[in-house]
C-alpha cells in the first residue's frame, strides 16, 4: 500500500521541516516547501500530493489564493488549513465550502489531531491508505 503523500506549505522553515519529519515518522510521505510558488510548481510538475497542509499568511501569495489555485488545478487534492489565527473553532470568516478546504487546524497543532484530520481527508477521498 502506497503511503499518503502530504505536502506542508509554510514559510516558517523550522516548523515546516520538523512537522514533515514527524509526519514521516508516522508513516506519511511528506514534503515541505516554504513558499506557495514552490508548492504550485511541485503540483504542476505532476507531483500530486494527497493532502496539503497550508499556512494562510505567506509572503507574495497567501494561503487562500493558493488554495484556489490548487483546487482549480486538481479538485481531488484535499487541503487542510494550518493557521496561527482562529481560536480552535472553525473559521467563520472563511467559507470552506466555497474555497474547498477540508478543514482548519490551529497552530500549534497537536500531531495526533493532525494525523486524524489527514486520515479523515483521505476517507473523504474514498481512498484510505492507512
Amino acid at each position, binding site marked *: 500500500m502506497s503511503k499518503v503523500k502530504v505536502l506542508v506549505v*509554510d*514559510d*516558517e522553515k*523550522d*516548523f515546516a521541516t*520538523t*512537522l514533515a*519529519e*514527524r509526519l514521516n*515518522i508516522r508513516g506519511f510521505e511528506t514534503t515541505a516547501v516554504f513558499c506557495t510558488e514552490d508548492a504550485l510548481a511541485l503540483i504542476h510538475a505532476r507531483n500530486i500530493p494527497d493532502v496539503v497542509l497550508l*499556512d*494562510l*499568511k*505567506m509572503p507574495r501569495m497567501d*494561503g*487562500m489564493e493558493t488554495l484556489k489555485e490548487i483546487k482549480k488545478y486538481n479538485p481531488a487534492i484535499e487541503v487542510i488549513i*494550518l*493557521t*496561527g*489565527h*482562529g*481560536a*480552535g*473553532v472553525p*473559521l*467563520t*470568516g*472563511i467559507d470552506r465550502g466555497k474555497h474547498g478546504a477540508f478543514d482548519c487546524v*490551529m*497552530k*500549534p*497543532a497537536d*500531531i495526533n489531531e493532525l494525523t486524524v484530520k489527514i486520515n479523515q481527508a483521505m476517507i473523504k477521498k474514498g481512498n484510505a491508505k492507512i
Partner: protein
Amino acid sequence: MKKERGWIKRVFIDIDEYHETMTSPERYRRFRRTLFLVMTTTFLVPLIMTTWLSYYEYRSMMLTNLRWNAESAKRTIETFLTELQTVLAYTADGRTFEELVDQENLKNIYHHLKLNYPGVVDLGIIDHDGIQQAYAGPFDLLGKDYSDRECFKVVTVSKTYIGRVEMGYRKVPHFCIAVSGFNSDTSQSWVFRTSIDATTLDKYIGKTGTGALSDIFLVAWKGERQLQSSSRYYGPPLSIYPFDLPENRHGITISEELNVRDDVVLTAVAYLEGTPWALVLLKEGYLYGKDWSFFKARLFFIVLATTVLALLVIFQITNLFVGRIREADEKRETMLAEIEHTSKLASIGRLAAGVAHEINNPLAIISAKTGLVMDLLDLSEDFKYKEKIASEIRGTSDAVERCKVITHRLLGFARRMDVSLESININNLMREVLSFLDQEALYRGIHVDLNLGDSLPVIESDRGQLQQIFLNLVNNAIDAIGKDGKVTITTKKRDKNSIQVDVIDNGRGMTPEIMNHIFEPFFTTKDSGEKKGTGLGLFITYGLAKKLGGHISVRSSVGVGSTFTVILPTKITLSRRAPDVESEGPGR
C-alpha cells in the same frame, strides 16, 4: 454668528473648561446663577421699560389734557369778558352822555343787563372829573368820586378797562369793567362802568372745569397775587396765592408744584388777554380725580408683585432646567464610561490578538521540535539519560500547551467574529451547553439544577458566542464549588425585549474587592492546582455579552455563593452592537 457664540460661551459655561469636573456641584451652581440672572434680566428689563414708558406716556397724556383744559377755560372766560365789554361799548356808543345820566334810562339799561348777566351788580356813569353822575344798583354810590381810582385813570387813556377784584365802596368782592365815551358837544370824555360780582367768575370757571381737575381759579398777577375767585386749596377771593407766576405771559405754562400734602401737583398758568388776571389750573397726578400717589403706589405694587412672582417662577424653572441638565450630564457620563470600557475592551482585544498571533508561530515551532524529540526518543533504544530527557521534554510540552491555551483564548476573544444571527431557544441552548459539562459535574459530585422558564421568547443572537458565554459561566460555577455542591440555572422572560439567565452556585463566593475586578483581563483567583486560570474567561465572556447587546452582572457573598446574571435582548439592534474588536483578517 461667531461673535454670538463667543458671547454665549462667556455668559454660560465653557464646557471644555469644566470637562474634567463635568458634574461638579460648582459647575451647576454657577450655571444656575447665570441662568437665573439672564432669565431675570430678560424678564425685568422689558417690564421696567414698559412701566417707565407707561408712566411717562401717562404723564404726557395728563399734561396734554391739562393744556386743553387751560385753553378751554381761558377761552370761555375771555369770551365772557369780551362779550360784557362789547355790550357796554355798544350801549355807550348808541347813546349820548345826557341820555345815559338820565336815572330812568340807566335803570332800564341796568335791568336789561341784569336779566342777561345776573352777575352784574350795578351800573354807573362817571363824568370827566371822576364824579359818578348816574347810578343804578343796590348801593348808594351816586356822586361818589372815582377820580383817584385806577379804573377811572386807565379807562380814560385806554378806552376799555377790566379791574382786579376788590371790596371797594360796596364791601363785597367785585370787579369792574369800564368803557369810555366822548361827548362831542362838550368835548369831554366820560366813563360807563359796571361792577360784576366776583362769584360770577367762580360760576364761569366752575363751568369750564372738568372733574379731572383738582382746582381752577384766577389770580391777579399784579401786586400780592390775590385770588380773584375762590380756590379749593388757597381759600376765598382776595386770599394770597403762595407761588410765583411764570414770567412768560404768552400761551400756557405748565410746571410741577408741591401741594399742602406734599404731593406733586401739575400747575398750568394762562394769562388772560386784556385783564390783570392769570388763570391757574391745578391737577393732582391721577386721571379722573384719584390721587397721584395712590396711582404710583398701585403701579409700584403691580410691578413688585409681578417681579416677585416672576422671580419665583424663574427660580423654579432654573432649578428644574439645571436639574434636568445635570441628570442628562450624569447619564452621558455613565454612557461615556461605558463606551470607554467597551473601547478599552476593543483595544485590549486588538493588542492581545497581535501578541497571541506573533507568539503562536514560535510556539508552533517549539511544539513541533519538542514533539519531534519525543518521537525520536520513542524510536531510540534506552540510553543513560533517556527518561530524564523525556521528562524534561514533557515539561516543555506542558508549558507550550499552557501558552497555547492562553493564545487560543486571546485569539478567540479577538478573532473576527461576524455575528451570525439565528433564532435561538435559550432553554435548548442551555441544555446543549450542559451536555458538554455533564461528565465534569458528575465527576465532582456537583448537581446541576435546570430551572427553565416556560414560554420564553425565541431570541435572535449568535449561537456560538452564546455557547461560549454560558460554557464559561457554568465552568466557573463548577470551579467555584470544587467538589460536592449545586449549580442552579434559571431562565426567565425579563420584559418585552429581553430575557434573563441566572447561573447560581453555592461555592465559596467572592469578596466585594474581588467582584470589582473579575471582568478585568488577566485577573484570576484560580491560582493553584492543575486548573490554573488564564484570567481571560470572564473578560471574554463580558465582551461577548456586550457584543450581543446584553449585559452581565454578579452578586456574591463569601461562603454562600455567587449569582451571575446575563441579560440578553430578544433582538440585537445595530446601535447596541459593540464595535468589532479585531481589525486584521485571518492570519497564519
